[in-house]
């Protein structure tokens, strides 16, 4: 398949508020030619392959208390018990019990636990992909401390190997693997846009420098939908007087390999950034305003590569906080109240909850928190690849209602986040609900309010 084939098969929909492939006329939610039994077998083998002490401890300790449902935006908004987080893992729990649990020998010998069927796995595709953003809010409520989000990620690996990924998610992941970017932000597009933004905002851009201390990466959402963030990050870097660069051989921070569940692709995508950083001798790699990109490189990168990374990995909000806290980054006072939406992967699951708050404090903004905030923030509903899946739209909007209600109550004049995926979900939902609140980028706000040197 050439890239023209790609365009014909799964054309990107760059006109809408969120980027995905165009709504497919005919859905193909299974990939490859495989008999059903083989799909099931592949799924289970790959699930067990990933299995370790951590997942086993989780699988064994669930007491079926059902409290995780109460933390999940999809359950809370629909009341449908199938959206109970732990239920999303049911086929894999069954597989675990049959293959590795204490009574596995009994189950097998007596045939007590029937094998999971391919129909069930197909049914579970919706639960594992459409209705889970892996936001990990359920992890916070679980009295046994089970990290359900991790298990869902693991289950997705197995689903991918069995060719049971939703059409759009597979399409963008496949595009990312072949083109280097899931949403058409190829190296040449990237270069064009950098040039454009440099001219437009009269800011010095650095691309493909041979040596740099800091490598800046971008998410294709930003490149395609919010290119101003490229100018913004350049402004900040220049303001700080750092030796930084963009690299056309390592810029794409999103990792649809991870979201779709293909570990090989996930590694390929990680590798590009790691090698680019090594090439320029960067001591820091800065990840853009993208939630899952943070998890992919910051927490999974070294494990994907099989060795510690020779540089520090920072989310842009973390980096900004460091710089305002050590006084190098000087910002003007912004006379506005603000409500901040925490990106799950950066705050709750990334440990950088405080960083954006430090930055907003430096900007002198009055922070008006939502009722559930920080580590207990409700997910926007679009993470984990959910936003790309058309058939999940109705559910995603339903989940978004929580956000709107809480943000209205909090009442900040400005709405900020540090995740472009959340941002595009807000934009898309804003349009859907004809809502009057627009989401803004923390980075861009900082860039706009730098104190001139």
């Amino acid at each position, binding site marked *: 398949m050439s890239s023209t084939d790609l365009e014909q098969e799964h054309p990107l929909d760059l006109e809408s508020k969120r980027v995905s492939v165009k709504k497919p006329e005919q859905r193909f939610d299974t990939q490859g030619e495989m008999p059903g039994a083989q799909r099931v077998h592949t799924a289970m083998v790959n699930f067990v392959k990933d299995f370790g002490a*951590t997942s086993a401890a989780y699988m064994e300790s669930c007491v*079926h208390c059902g409290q995780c449902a109460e933390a999940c935006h999809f359950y809370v908004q629909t009341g449908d018990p199938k959206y109970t987080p732990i239920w999303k893992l049911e086929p894999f729990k069954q597989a675990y019990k049959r293959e590795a649990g204490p009574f596995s020998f009994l189950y097998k010998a007596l045939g007590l636990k029937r094998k999971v069927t391919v129909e069930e796995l197909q049914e579970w595709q919706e639960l594992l992909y459409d209705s889970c953003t892996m936001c990990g809010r359920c992890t916070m*409520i679980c009295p046994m*401390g089970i*990290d359900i989000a991790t298990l869902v990620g693991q289950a997705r690996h197995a689903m991918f190997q069995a060719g049971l990924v939703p059409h759009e998610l597979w399409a963008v992941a496949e595009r990312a693997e072949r083109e280097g970017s899931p949403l058409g932000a190829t190296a040449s597009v990237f270069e064009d846009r950098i040039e454009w933004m440099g001219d437009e905002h009269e800011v010095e851009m650095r691309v493909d420098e041979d040596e740099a201390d800091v490598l800046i990466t971008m998410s294709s959402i930003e490149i395609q939908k919010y290119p101003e963030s490229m100018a913004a990050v350049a402004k900040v870097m220049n303001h700080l007087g750092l030796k930084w660069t963009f690299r056309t051989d390592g810029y794409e921070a999103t990792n649809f390999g991870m979201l779709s569940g293909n570990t090989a692709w996930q590694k390929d995508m990680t590798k590009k950034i790691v090698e680019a950083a090594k090439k320029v001798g960067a001591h820091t790699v800065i990840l853009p305003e993208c939630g899952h990109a943070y998890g992919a490189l910051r927490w999974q990168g070294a494990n994907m590569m099989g060795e510690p990374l020779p540089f520090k990995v920072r989310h842009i909000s973390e980096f900004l906080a460091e710089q305002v806290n050590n006084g190098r980054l000087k910002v003007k006072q912004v006379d506005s109240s603000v409500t901040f939406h925490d990106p799950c992967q950066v705050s709750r699951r990334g440990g950088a909850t405080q960083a954006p708050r430090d930055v907003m404090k430096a900007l002198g903004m009055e922070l008006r928190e939502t009722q559930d905030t920080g580590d207990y923030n409700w997910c926007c509903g679009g993470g984990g690849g959910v936003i790309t899946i058309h058939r999940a739209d109705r559910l995603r909007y339903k989940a978004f209602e929580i956000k709107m209600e809480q943000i209205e109550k909090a009442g900040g004049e400005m709405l900020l986040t540090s995740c472009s995926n959340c941002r595009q979900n807000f934009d898309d939902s804003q349009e859907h609900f004809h809502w009057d609140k627009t989401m803004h980028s923390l980075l861009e706000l900082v860039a706009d309010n730098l104190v001139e040197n």
Partner: protein
Amino acid sequence: MDLLEFARGPAMQWSLIILVFGIAWRLFGIIFLKRKKDLAEPRQTGVLGGAVKTIFSRSVPARAFWSRVMYSNIVGYVFHIGLAIVVFAFLPHILWFESILGFQWPALPTSVITLVAVITLASMVALLVKRLTHPVLRRISNFDDYFSWLVTIVPLLTGMMAFTHTGFGMRYETVLAIHILSVEFLFIWLPFGKLGHSFLVFLSRGTTGALFARRGART
């Protein structure tokens, strides 16, 4: 050998052996599974502290969840604390523990124990009713959930029957034997069903606590 002798003798010995064997098996069987080294640069290194903190912090739901899980938590707590009081503060039980551990502790008055047992029983019934009626719980419940409930409530019921000398036609020593046997069955079932959470809770909470502490996330 009558039933009571069997319950107090070989059944007790074997059930304890199976209990200890099972717990060791389950724990070691999990701990020694593949454990990948986490190569990511940690935000903080106090991983053990995080594990311990989560083991405690998860005992109470976070404020953000209170309104949604208050009922199950309160009933759950009543049931767990009630059970603990009945098991550990009733004198005949303390004497049993003393025969193993070699020391004893003060008991609560039996009138208090009776009251607590009744409350515990009621809370268990409430939990079952919820499991049978709540759509989420109905969906995710399986044989283990109902069976473990039964295995837990039978000792409580038979214990109360023995204590109050209510045998419904059975003699006291028969009721006592059934009570002891039911506890022994609980011992045997505990490591293998969901009652295993009594020891696995430390493992799963600790695992997440360590993971989150490493990332500097809330433990």
